[in-house]
């Protein structure tokens, strides 16, 4: 035990002190922040630009209704996000400047197309009577990839037409407003007779955590593999094996690399917390919907650690069979396959967390880190299932550690070609 501890200590300290670790740990938050902040910053810039749009319709009333709808929709959509941080001037400047054109001839259409090309206008909506009869509206513009804009336009056209038709049936404006008022729909998870997180939050949180789990297990599993290859190539192992057993060495190494991973995650969480805490204090509204249940955090921790151990033990065995990083790339599929399979299964399991499929697949130790976690997030399964699952994972990891250290013991002293499967069986015998 003492030896494994020393190996762990060395592995951990050397890695934490390495430049690669420090740079990676500091750069990642910068990278994450910029992926979040830059698009937000850019879209904040956008409202300043006014889009010049021409509404082409035979019926000027319809065009006017759509115009009013579009302008009112815009002020409305600005209101909820109008927190202290957003400057008031933003909603004052209209995003659309709208002209109405009642000439629906093909010649006019060609002219508008040219205007778009010459950037005189940004786009035009074609609402000729025949188009309206077919309920087909075309928006022509230079760039139509801003889906937000397309949806906004579509909604405006849709509600303007509905309002108009309801008005023709004799409904008052107030009645129309009431009829069209959207329903706020939310599904809420019930736990121990109390209502907990909402469905969409569960899904989002599960998905994010599954991805975190997947990425980290792979990244650090691969780090274990590389570290073994490095040791193999530096020929240090024979010295170490004269005082440490292969099992101690392997266990120390896996725990060491894993601890480095956890340290990194904690640093990131701390940075993220430090930056988002002031925001959380001022506006609790947005995140209160997506609150992560405590049991989820706990489950994440447990399954992250167990999953990491299971997979990195497998990676260690693979690492002892090869001599270079290139070879490592080629042999790492046996370790990646189950985890990818588990991710594919996670959607059906999340949808039916109590099905036979969910039960049996989540009991497979290689799938459990993802599937059992997802089940716990969706609908906490009976305690005995969780305990059985964790026990199975621990047993498998222990067995795999024994097997891996045998492969390791023979493999690390062999500097030749990669073994075939029958050769691998012999290795396991040699190590006896």
């Amino acid at each position, binding site marked *: 035990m003492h030896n494994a501890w*020393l190996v762990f200590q*060395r592995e951990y300290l050397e890695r934490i002190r390495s430049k690669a670790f420090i740079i990676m740990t500091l750069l990642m938050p910068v990278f994450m922040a910029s992926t979040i902040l830059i698009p937000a910053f850019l879209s904040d810039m956008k409202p300043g630009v006014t889009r010049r749009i021409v509404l082409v319709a035979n019926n000027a009333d319809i065009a006017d209704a759509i115009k009013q709808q579009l302008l009112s929709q815009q002020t409305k959509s600005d209101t909820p996000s109008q927190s202290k941080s957003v400057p008031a001037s933003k909603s004052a400047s209209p995003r659309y400047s709208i002209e109405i054109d009642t000439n629906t001839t093909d010649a006019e259409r060609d002219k508008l197309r040219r205007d778009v090309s010459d950037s005189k206008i940004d786009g035009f909506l074609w609402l000729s009577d025949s188009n309206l009869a077919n309920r087909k509206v075309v928006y022509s513009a230079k760039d139509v990839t801003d889906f937000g804009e397309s949806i906004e336009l579509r909604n405006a056209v849709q509600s303007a037409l509905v309002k108009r038709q309801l008005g023709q049936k004799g409904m008052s404006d107030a009645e129309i407003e009431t009829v069209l008022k959207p329903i706020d729909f939310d599904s809420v998870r019930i736990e121990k007779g109390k209502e907990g997180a909402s469905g969409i939050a569960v899904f989002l949180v599960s998905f994010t955590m599954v991805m975190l789990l997947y990425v980290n297990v792979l990244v650090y599993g691969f780090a274990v593999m590389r570290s073994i290859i490095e040791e193999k190539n530096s020929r240090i192992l024979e010295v170490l094996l*004269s005082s440490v057993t292969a099992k101690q060495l392997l266990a120390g190494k896996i725990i060491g690399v894993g601890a480095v991973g956890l340290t990194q995650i904690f640093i990131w969480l701390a940075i993220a917390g430090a930056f988002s805490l002031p925001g959380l204090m001022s506006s609790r509204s947005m995140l209160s919907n997506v609150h992560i249940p405590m049991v989820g955090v706990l489950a994440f921790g447990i399954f992250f650690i167990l999953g990491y151990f299971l997979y990195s033990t497998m990676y260690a065995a693979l690492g002892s069979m090869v001599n270079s990083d290139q070879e490592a790339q080629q042999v790492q599929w046996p370790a990646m396959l189950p985890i990818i399979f588990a991710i594919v299964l996670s959607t059906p399991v999340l949808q039916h967390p109590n099905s036979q499929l969910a039960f049996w697949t989540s009991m497979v130790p290689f799938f459990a880190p993802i599937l059992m976690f997802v089940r716990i997030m969706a609908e906490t399964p009976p305690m005995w299932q969780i305990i059985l699952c964790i026990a199975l994972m621990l047993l498998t990891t222990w067995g795999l550690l024994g097997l891996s250290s045998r492969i390791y013991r023979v493999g690390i002293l062999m500097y030749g070609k990669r073994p075939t499967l029958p050769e691998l069986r012999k290795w396991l015998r040699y190590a006896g």
Partner: protein
Amino acid sequence: MPDTVELRAIHKTYDHFVAVDHLSLNIREGSVYGLLGPNGAGKTTTIRMMIGINMPDEGEVWLFGEKFHRQQLQRIGYLPEERGLYKRMKVLDHLVFLGRLHGLSGAEARKRSLNWCERLQISDWVQKKVEELSKGMQQKIQFVAALLHDPDLLILDEPFSGLDPANAVMLKDVMVELKKSGKTILFSTHRMDQVERLCDSICLIDHGRSVLEGDLKKIKASYGKNTVQMQYEGDPPFDHNELIQSVNNYGNYVELRLKPGADAQQLLRTACEHARISRFELVEPSLEEIFLDVVGQNA
């Protein structure tokens, strides 16, 4: 007093290849023991089985009078033939790490590392990273690592390979000193001159079998004084001489192995007729000759 190392018919096969074939040997406490043999003879496998890196298929390893168990490793220092260190670690950190693995406290490992580094003239390098050091210097570091915990048994696999003469002498001096303080040293090498000067006993391994084992002086004596060293000027006829079994001629110096029962005086008379002899001596064969002789017979 029990022998420091006792191998009882250890045997190891890889697939169909017999790496070590029922090998037995005994190493006396306080002796310097040479493990010799051509490449691929099974020296390294034997050493690895001695310290539990590999397990023998058959036979037993006894160390310090007890059957092998892992606590004994705290009393053994090992310098493997495959030299290797963590390249990015600082030399001192590395030595402390290896010392602690052998049961020293951090402070003690540090103190001893610094002492040894000073002794081997590498003090200036202890704060450098291993990768900045030359091969020979890395080898000295590993030698220090094997000595840190003051082992009773020191196992050195090809300790002199890759060292320049000055460093080889430094290493040899340390070995002699350790022997004087009662430590047992086992080393494997191809260099017969060092074995002859350093070793008390040897084991010659070929094809995994021990072909010659025992006290070096006795082995040499058993071959008798059948070798002639001669310094000469002229051209004595050594070819096709009925007295001579083999010749190793250097031009004006020659080593001759006599045939069993041949008379050295007769050889001297024949030589006198053809050359001026400045030295004529009857000696025991060198270890190199014995090595070539034994390995040659087994080939």
